[in-house]
């Protein structure tokens, strides 16, 4: 999966640590998701979408489909 988490996080001026605290996950988890080393579970994806006030599809896209909206 591709994602635009890094861009969204930067647009909100959040550090990985700060986003991790909002999501109740470690900074390493945020880093792994941003760099595509780890695909989050559905509950975590929903949580991420809620933080950025957008739909999951706006952040995550399947590699075979179009790139995520930014």
């Amino acid at each position, binding site marked *: 999966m591709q994602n635009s988490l890094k861009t969204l996080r930067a647009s909100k001026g959040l550090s990985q640590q700060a986003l*991790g*605290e909002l999501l*109740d*996950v*470690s900074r*390493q*988890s945020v*880093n*792994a*998701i941003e760099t595509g*080393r*780890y695909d*989050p*579970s559905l509950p*975590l994806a929903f949580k991420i979408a809620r933080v950025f006030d957008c739909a999951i599809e706006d952040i995550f896209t399947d590699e075979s489909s179009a790139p995520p909206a930014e």
Partner: protein
Amino acid sequence: MSPKLARTRYMKLFIPSMILYLVGIFLASTERIIDMLPDGAIYGLVIIPAIGVFGWIYAQMRFVKECDEYIRKMQIEAILYGVCALMCVATVWGLLEFYTNVPKLPIFFALPGFYLFYGLAGAYLGWKNKAMCAML
């Protein structure tokens, strides 16, 4: 639960359990103490490190449940690598004990053996996934 709280809860149980284990191992491996004890008391003495082992493995199970999903995935991978390596060594060594003159390896070493392999796997996964501090 926040990862920080999960780690704090883990350390709060892990440290006393490890101390209990080390004290139990020290007592159970000191000949002067063993010689002084009647046979029945030795059975009681060897339970002390086992309580420590139970405590820290319970702490680890709880940590795996309470940490976030990415750390949980790496922890489970490290545990599986540890179990896999230990089982492979046990299979090879066990067969060698049957058919050759290799020294008998006491079953006591299964636990430190597992933690050696688990630790190496955890360090490797932490390095590979750039999450070393989350795995230590």
